C-alpha cells in the first residue's frame, strides 16, 4: 500500500490517489499517510528527537516540514517519550522504540494511519494508552488501519475487522458480526443436582447435563425461556446462581476456522 513492493497486477490508490508511478519524487498522497511498517526503525547513533527531525526534513515542502517540526514536542509527549527524546535511540528499550515509531507516524497529522502491530513490545499500561489514543484519533476523523494478531485488542479497538488468509479477504465486518451470538448460556451454581432438577422441567430449556460431575452447566434457551426466567426459577428454588454468561464462539475460534477454511480451499 505504501509503494514499497510493486503489485504483480492491479493498482493501488490511497484516498483516491495513486501510489505507484512516482518513482522520481514519490507519490504525493503519502504525505498524508503515517505508517508503522513491520517494526519501527531508526538511526541508532541519533537521538529520538533527531530521528524525527531528520525523517521530517528528508521530504516535503518548506511549510509541511515546518509544521511537522513544530509538532515534535507534542507528539513525543503524546507517546510519553518527552524525557527520553535526547537519548540516542541505541539506548532505547523495545517499548521506547515502539513509542517513537508511533510518534513518527503521527507527526504529519495524517489522514490515514497504517500501523503494523502498534502495541508490540509495550507493557499492558502502554498497550491501553495506545488503544485509547487510536480510538481518540479515529473519533476525530483519522482513518486507521491496524494489523494485529492480538484478537482481543482488535475486538476492543476496531470498528471493522477484516480477516486475511492466503492473501485473500475471507471475512469483513464489525467485530460483533464475526462472532454470532448464540443462545447458549453457561451457569455456575452451588447445587448442581438441584439446578438440573429445576431446569429440566422448564419449557424451552435444553440441558445436556444430568447433574452429576462438576463445573458450569450449559443450557440452550428458546422462547419462552430466557436468561432472566431461568435465573428467577433457580433462585426461587433456593439454588444460588453465581454466574450466568452468554456463550459465544471466541474470536480465536472464528479466526482459525476462517483461516483453515481458506487453507482447505487451496
Amino acid at each position, binding site marked *: 500500500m*505504501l*509503494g*514499497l*513492493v*510493486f503489485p504483480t497486477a492491479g493498482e493501488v490508490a490511497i484516498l483516491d490517489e495513486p501510489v505507484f508511478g*512516482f*518513482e*522520481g*519524487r*514519490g*507519490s*504525493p498522497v*503519502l*504525505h498524508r*499517510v503515517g*505508517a508503522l*511498517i*513491520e*517494526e*519501527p*526503525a*531508526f*538511526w*541508532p*547513533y*541519533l537521538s529520538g528527537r*533527531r530521528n524525527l527531525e*531528520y*525523517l521530517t*526534513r*528528508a*521530504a*516535503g515542502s518548506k511549510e509541511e516540514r515546518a509544521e511537522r517540526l513544530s509538532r515534535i514536542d507534542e507528539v513525543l509527549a503524546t507517546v510519553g517519550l518527552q524525557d527520553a527524546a535526547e537519548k540516542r535511540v541505541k539506548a532505547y528499550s523495545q517499548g521506547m522504540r515502539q513509542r517513537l515509531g508511533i510518534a*513518527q507516524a503521527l507527526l504529519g497529522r495524517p489522514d490515514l494511519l497504517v500501523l503494523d502491530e502498534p502495541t508490540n513490545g509495550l507493557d499492558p499500561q502502554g498497550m491501553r494508552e495506545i488503544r485509547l489514543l487510536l480510538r481518540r484519533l479515529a473519533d476525530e476523523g483519522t482513518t486507521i488501519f491496524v494489523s494485529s494478531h492480538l484478537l482481543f485488542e482488535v475486538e476492543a479497538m476496531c470498528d471493522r475487522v477484516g480477516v486475511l488468509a492466503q492473501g485473500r479477504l475471507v471475512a469483513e465486518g464489525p467485530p460483533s458480526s464475526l462472532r454470532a451470538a448464540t443462545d447458549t448460556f453457561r451457569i455456575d451454581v452451588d447445587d448442581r443436582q438441584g439446578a438440573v432438577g429445576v431446569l429440566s422441567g422448564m419449557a424451552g430449556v435444553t440441558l445436556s447435563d444430568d447433574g452429576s460431575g462438576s463445573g458450569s452447566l450449559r443450557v440452550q434457551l428458546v422462547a419462552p425461556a430466557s436468561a432472566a426466567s431461568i435465573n428467577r426459577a433457580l433462585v426461587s428454588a433456593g439454588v444460588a446462581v453465581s454466574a450466568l454468561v452468554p456463550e459465544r464462539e471466541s474470536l480465536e475460534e472464528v479466526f482459525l476456522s476462517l483461516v483453515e477454511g481458506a487453507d482447505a480451499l487451496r
Partner: protein
Amino acid sequence: MFWVEVGKTTRRIRTWVFAAGLAMLAVLPVVVLIRDHNPGGGPPFYQMIRHNGLFAALTAVALLQPFFLPLGAALLSGEAIAGEASLGTLRYLLARPVGRRRLIAVKYGVVMAELATSLVWVMALGLLAGAIAFGLGPLPTLSGTSIGTGAGVLRVLGAALYVEAGIASVAAIGIFFSTLTDSGPGATVGTVALAIASQVLDGLSTFRAIHPYLPTHHWLAWADLFRSPVPWDALARGLVLDVVYAGIFLGAALVMFGRKDVAS
C-alpha cells in the same frame, strides 16, 4: 535532504576518526622529509616538496588515490542504500515519501561531497605542513621550468578536481551495488574489488589491449598538470572514462532501484 545527510555524517564518531587518520596521512610526507637527509625515490612529488611546500598537497593526494580513496568511496557509497536497508530506515524514507530516483541522486551527491571534503582536507593539511616546513614560492614543473605560486595553486585545484572526477566512477559502482543488497559491507567489498582489479589489470602488460578502457587507467594523469606545456591528452581521456563509467553505473542504479521491491 542533502543537508540532512550531511548532518547525519557529522554526528557520527567515525567521521571524525577518519578525519584524524587522513590528517596524519596528509602531513606524513612532510614529517618524513624533514628528517630525511638523503631523500631518494618516494611517492610522486615527494622530492619536490623541498623546493615548494605546495607539492606536499600533491604527495598527500598521490598517497591517497590508489587505495585509501577508493576504499573510502566504496565504504560510503556501498552503505548509501544498503545501510539504510539493513537499519530498516529505507522503507520509512521511501514512505515519507522520498522518491526512489531522488534518493539515489541525493545519496550519490552526498558521497561525492564527502569525498571532495576529504580531498580538500588532505590537500589543505598537506599544503599547510609543506608551507610551514619548506615555504612556498615559484613552482618548479616536472619539465624543468617554473611557474608562479598563483598558477601553481590553480593547477593544484585542477588536480583535486581531476581526482574527484576519477573517484566518481568508483562511487557510482558502489551506489549500484548498494541497490542490489541489504549488506553495506557486501557492496563495499564488491566495489573495492572492482577498483583494485582495474588497477591490477592495468599493471599487467598481458591485458594491454583493454588498458585504455579500464576506469583507473588515467587516474594519475593529474601529474600532467605540472608539466609545461600541459599535455591534455591523458587528462581528457581520463575524464571521458570517468563520465562513461559513472554514467553507466549510476544509470543502472536508478533503473534497478526504480523497480525494486523494498521489503527490508
